[in-house]
């Protein structure tokens, strides 16, 4: 067990070094996200003109939602893990994992963890620059339970995001090109994970439905706990249960696709 942990600790450390190489890339990306935040502030600021609340939330609460989502994204979102995995399958890099006692899923997960640590911390650079400007717009509720339920929710969201990316990477066993699948699914995720608008603004029936889909748990759920859009600890706890269900389901799917894919896989050359 110790040996196994040690194995993946090394993968994590190598991943850390590998991702620090891309520090400019991540910082640039985070900076573009702040342009997106300007759009969000302008759009929602105008939508709130002459109103004190939309969907029961004040302007600063809604802006806090978007800022939190943006920052959390850099800590838990899968960026290009699906492409990387796809490349490794195509290039035959996975062949070595068939011979060594290294689990490919955990190997990639360790690198994902390292990458998110780097990109998450780098996202604070533009945030700190912008903080004097947006500070007055931030309104966080203070209850302690939000932290105790929100952190595990965020951790499970990260695992869900990674598992989805892993599953898309696995499609490489069956399809030559997976980019269109990924971007198609990304459009759905963007919408149903609450990146375009807080999901609670949807018509009640659709909102209820969205709570049963995995997308809800991949971003919206932890952000809603942190920013006060979910106010009932019992409901949050129930949400954690459903989130756990989706996590297990996606992990199982990832495992299934890996095993099935390997059957189709032919390792050519050396």
């Amino acid at each position, binding site marked *: 067990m110790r040996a196994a942990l040690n194995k993946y600790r090394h993968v994590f450390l190598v991943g850390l070094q590998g991702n620090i190489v891309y520090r400019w890339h991540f910082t640039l990306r985070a900076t573009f996200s702040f342009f997106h935040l300007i*759009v969000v502030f302008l759009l929602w600021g105008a939508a*709130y003109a002459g109103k004190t609340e939309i969907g029961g939330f004040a302007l600063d609460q809604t802006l806090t939602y978007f800022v939190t989502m943006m920052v959390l994204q850099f800590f838990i979102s899968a960026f290009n893990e699906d492409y990387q995995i796809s490349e490794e399958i195509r290039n035959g890099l996975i062949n070595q994992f068939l011979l060594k006692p290294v689990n490919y899923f955990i190997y990639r997960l360790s690198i994902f963890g390292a990458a998110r640590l780097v990109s998450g911390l780098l996202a604070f650079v533009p945030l700190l620059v912008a903080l004097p400007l947006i500070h007055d717009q931030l309104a966080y509720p203070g209850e302690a339970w939000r932290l105790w339920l929100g952190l595990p929710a965020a951790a499970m969201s990260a695992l869900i995001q990674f598992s989805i990316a892993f599953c898309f990477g696995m499609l490489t066993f069956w399809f030559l090109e997976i980019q269109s699948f990924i971007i198609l699914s990304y459009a759905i995720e963007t919408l149903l994970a609450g990146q*375009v608008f807080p999901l609670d*603004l949807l018509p009640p029936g659709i909102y209820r439905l969205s709570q049963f889909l995995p997308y809800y748990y991949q971003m919206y759920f932890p952000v809603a706990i942190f920013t006060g859009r979910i106010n009932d600890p019992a409901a949050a706890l129930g949400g954690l249960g459903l989130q756990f269900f989706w996590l297990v389901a996606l992990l199982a799917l990832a495992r299934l696709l890996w095993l099935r894919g390997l059957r189709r896989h032919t390792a050519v050359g050396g």
Partner: protein
Amino acid sequence: MNDKTNPITPGAEHSREPARAARPNYLRLWLASARYSVVRAMMFRMDFLMWTLVELFWMGVNVAMVAVIYRHTDSIGGWSQYEMLLLIGTSMIIQRLMMGFFWSNIFEFGRNIRTGHFDFFLAQPGNVLFMVSTRKLDLDSLANVVVAIAVVIYSAGKLGLHPGVLDIAAYILLLACGLAVNYSLIVLAVSLTFWVIKTEGIEGSYFSLTEFSRLPREVFRGLANVIFVYALPVVIVTNIPARALLGGIRLADAAWLVAVSAAWFGLAVFVFHRGLRRYASASS
């Protein structure tokens, strides 16, 4: 046109006039690229369908956003729901035209500078910028131009608009100016590759800027107004055509957009040619 140098239709009529050989027929060149793109798309039909679907979904995201926000408010910057949808449809038309005609060509041009494959374009008889920009078309984006136009027509219908022929002509002209601005911005950004070899992440900047194109001009205040409405032409490219369709054309605005597109296009051509002088191919 000089058919000897045109690999696409070898053996067609041979030009006897050397003067004509110096000036290729750009329309025919472009049509040949277009035909090649159609053939290619038909070879990879599944791919074409998938990418058309992808773009359709992304347009759906924007339409859904409008639908949801307007459940809770009647106006954004004085624009009603269908006015806003018309604005977003307008921005989609420009963006899809941009993607359809130029996007991948210009990014390939950036990559080619890095790899040295750009030599191939320099060897071609014809304007380099034209050759670089019109190599192929993305048909899936062009298919979605139709959907974007449908969004605009639907919104106009909901608003009870009855634009005359002149209004529509003005709208199309202003859209063309918007496209020219978008094209110029991308050429400018990618031309930087002549000076700094690493220009990854520039696509991100383009998509960040086009997000501003989907907002009504009226929501910009203070510094944001100075930067995004006046300094960078990202807001007026969509707002002025959309306004033209909504409330009849305002001449001052139209003149502004025409002048801005001419200026940015001129700047892009200038920077591109300055960069071209620096190009020294790649060593390997």
